């Protein structure tokens, strides 16, 4: 009854090859097959955004995608954001500076949504940032710290870019 397939996915530069059921979600694959538990599952219906990852550089929701659909592709999770020497990604550092997190459950999804967006647009306005994270729900922070953290990066980038 169960349809299984062998898949290969590159996550944060490491190839994971696993025999899995075709019905396994990508979020369950990342968390329970690959042991990368930084990607969180908040609603399993694609609304809360906690499970957001990058698939080939694009922010997507890993709870409403099957793992087999990611076969042969490149995934980045929150564990892959920092430098190999451990230095935090500038946005992670900005979250720390601006109190952009409390319980930390929505944080990986927020980081993945915003880092993907900042690649697209390096100098967003506050309103644009709010629009972008309107697909990620946070029950703790009231969003202000998250918006400020993303603005901190945007401002730094636009200052550097303008020079």
């Amino acid at each position, binding site marked *: 009854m169960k349809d299984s397939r062998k898949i290969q996915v590159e996550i944060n530069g490491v190839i994971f090859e696993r025999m899995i059921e075709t019905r396994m979600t990508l979020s369950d694959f990342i968390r329970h097959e690959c042991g990368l538990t930084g990607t969180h599952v908040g609603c399993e219906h694609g609304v809360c955004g906690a499970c957001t990852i990058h698939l080939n550089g694009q922010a997507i929701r890993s709870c409403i995608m099957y793992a087999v659909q990611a076969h042969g592709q490149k995934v980045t999770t929150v564990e892959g954001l920092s430098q190999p020497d451990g230095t935090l990604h500038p946005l992670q550092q900005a979250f720390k500076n601006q109190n952009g997190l409390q319980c*930390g459950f929505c944080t990986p999804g927020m980081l993945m949504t915003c880092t993907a967006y900042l690649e697209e647009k390096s100098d967003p306005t506050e309103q644009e940032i709010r629009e972008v994270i309107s697909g990620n729900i946070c029950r703790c922070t009231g969003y202000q710290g998250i918006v400020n953290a993303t603005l901190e990066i945007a401002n730094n980038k636009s200052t550097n870019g303008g020079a």
Partner: protein
Amino acid sequence: MQRLRSLIISQPMEVHEMHTKNVGTPVQRLEDDRLLRGKGRYVDDIDLPDQLAIMFVRSSEAHAFIRSVDCDQARALAGVIGVYQLKDFGPLAAKPMILANPSPLIRQPITQYMLALDEVCYVGQAIAVVVAENRYIAEDAAQLVVVDYEPLPVVMDARKAAMANAHLVHQNSTDNLAATLPWKFGDIDQAFTKAPHIFKESYYQHRGVVHSMECRGVIAQHDAQLDQLTVWTSTQSPFLVRRFLAQFLEREEVAIRVIAPDVGGGFGPKAAHYPEELVATLLAIKLKRPIKWIEDRLEHFLTTTQQRDQWWDVEVACESDGHVLGMRAVCTHDNGAYLPYGLLLCMTSVAPFPGSYAIGAIDIRLDCMFTNAVPTTPIRGAGRPNATFVIERTMDTIARELKLDRIKVRQRNFVQKEQFPYLTGAKLPNGIGIQYDSGDYARCLDMVLEASQYSQLEIRCKEAAQKGVYRGIGIASYNEDSGLPPYEGATVKVLPSGKVFVELGSCSQGQGLETIVAQITADQFGLHASDILVKLGDTIASAMALSTVGSRVASTAGPSVFLAAQAVRQKAFKLAAEHFNVSENEVHIDAGILFLKSMPDQKISLADLAKKLVAGVMVNVPQGFSPGLESTAYHTTERAVYANGSNVAEVEVDIHTGEVTLLNYWVAHDCGTVINPALVNGQIIGGVVHAIGNALFEHMKFDQDTGQPITTNLGEYLLPLATEMPKIHITHMESPSPLNPLGVKGAGEGGTIPGIACVISAIEDALKPFNVKINEYPLSPERLLCLIEEAKIRAVA
């Protein structure tokens, strides 16, 4: 030898900065690094060898007898270990769950069985449990269990439940009244007899589902050789979960260890104890394998406790200048199908009266009704936002009816600065009189008016009106009985390495407890918060704890940490003085090094002092000292500490679509001594946003005839999003509490408590030209348009 040691330890003194003051500064959170890297450890991040997954078969009926449960097909599915009902767990489980917080006021102390016995009383109630090799199989199998129901009539509206001929929520009970709570003091009859003005209003309030971003979850493991249980659960109350497990399972508490790992938000409902914790634990014993249950979002909608409907009928007696002489009210409260948490939610709905105001007489009755919906327990603020809504809307009513300024009505009634400590006249059921310890409510209101440049706001509203734009200003004040007694214990110890370690049984769900505990400790040793090692949320801790609820850990655990750290510091000073053969006041400390002021090269590290008190063969503890450079302390209290604040909101209403735009929100907040301003701001902003959700978006709807929940995903149930939130501006006032050594009061709920009243007040103000009265929330655009239309019709008639 002495010189050599001095040389070695002089190194850190040069590289360390002076850190004498962590408390009061926005120290960066110790929690953040691991959480930002995805290295947090929430319950679902734990996988134990041989672990099994469980899934519950839940009632699809709001009220029914169970004729039969057919598990054969489910049991036959490959990968299924078993399917169990209550009867399969033996006599130990054949009793209702333990009622937390029992009270003589409870007429019908009805709690649910961990799995239904024969009657189900809400949609989602657990009937059976499937155990399987993994969650996917468990979910498949749960679908194959066939339950034959005999439907019974349902009661969803608490007002209908209170009627004499109402259907019964529980077939075996005589009526649906769980309890009646009185809350009264002063001469209410005299107040109403002599008052020149009496106003009456009715209010409807609904607060919905908690929606912590992490749902609930539990893993239970049983070590059969030691007969020792370990339970990881996403809880606010590891000590209470342990106590209830021990009582229910008839085991000693020392044979059970409960751990709250990283918890992805709590906000109240995770302080309760749930059937799933019992079932997982009993299965772990029965099957000799670890059992994991992770709640999904649908189960969260159906089974995590909520905070739903209240209907209030309120009368206020006042003088012509707005001075309130007395308030009367009757509240009908929807408690859902059971009473898992006693009457705490009901109590917090009445005990805030008279709020920030010196009102001489209060007479309130709350009827706590059973309904065929999921049980309720406190959510951020508990009943306080409801009580504050009633009190603040009453102040606005007085202003409107007597044509007085809303601010002046509040100022006229505030408990004045000179009146603290202020005894309201009310008494808690334990006989303790309610006493507001400290504050300056009028000043706090002034501060928010200054911060919001209130007179400018009024001008902006007038200018907008000339352009046909409906802008309004909301005002609300509140106070809160934060810091629920009696205690949260703390242990501080210097480890043999010299590292200062703090251990608390109390736990955190994102508030930053680890950081503030480290700040308080670091100040005693001239260290930085980041030098301190902190461990939270484990019943293995030396000191006892209660629960992270009611804005209480900063003002209960905080002072305990302070007392323990101070005792360790004193012990270190005494030991160092003896070591150098000087008096204690010769000794100073910086960066964890104790030295003599007169001879700074005479120094000894905390590590070397700690070693003197660690057991060793032929090494004796110095005379006059107890073993270990450590201390366990309890700050115990029998009274709450009263935080307070005032808020101002600026909104715009589109009268054609009913859309409300929140433009700005200002908070002046007094939680006594601020340990970490950045963290307090985070608590307040998050709290305000929760209130905005309650005021405008969040509505847990049920079909009134069948009891079926009809908002069961995050598309139908709206949570506040970044796009709808205003800029929230915060001003702090600090009136330290005299009731604890840090002067700390609670901050976790101060944003939520006045927030709903403030937003609704602003919308009503914006719609002043239509004389729209808003006595309810949540306020959807459709509902707001109805209220505008009704007001227009009234104006014509």
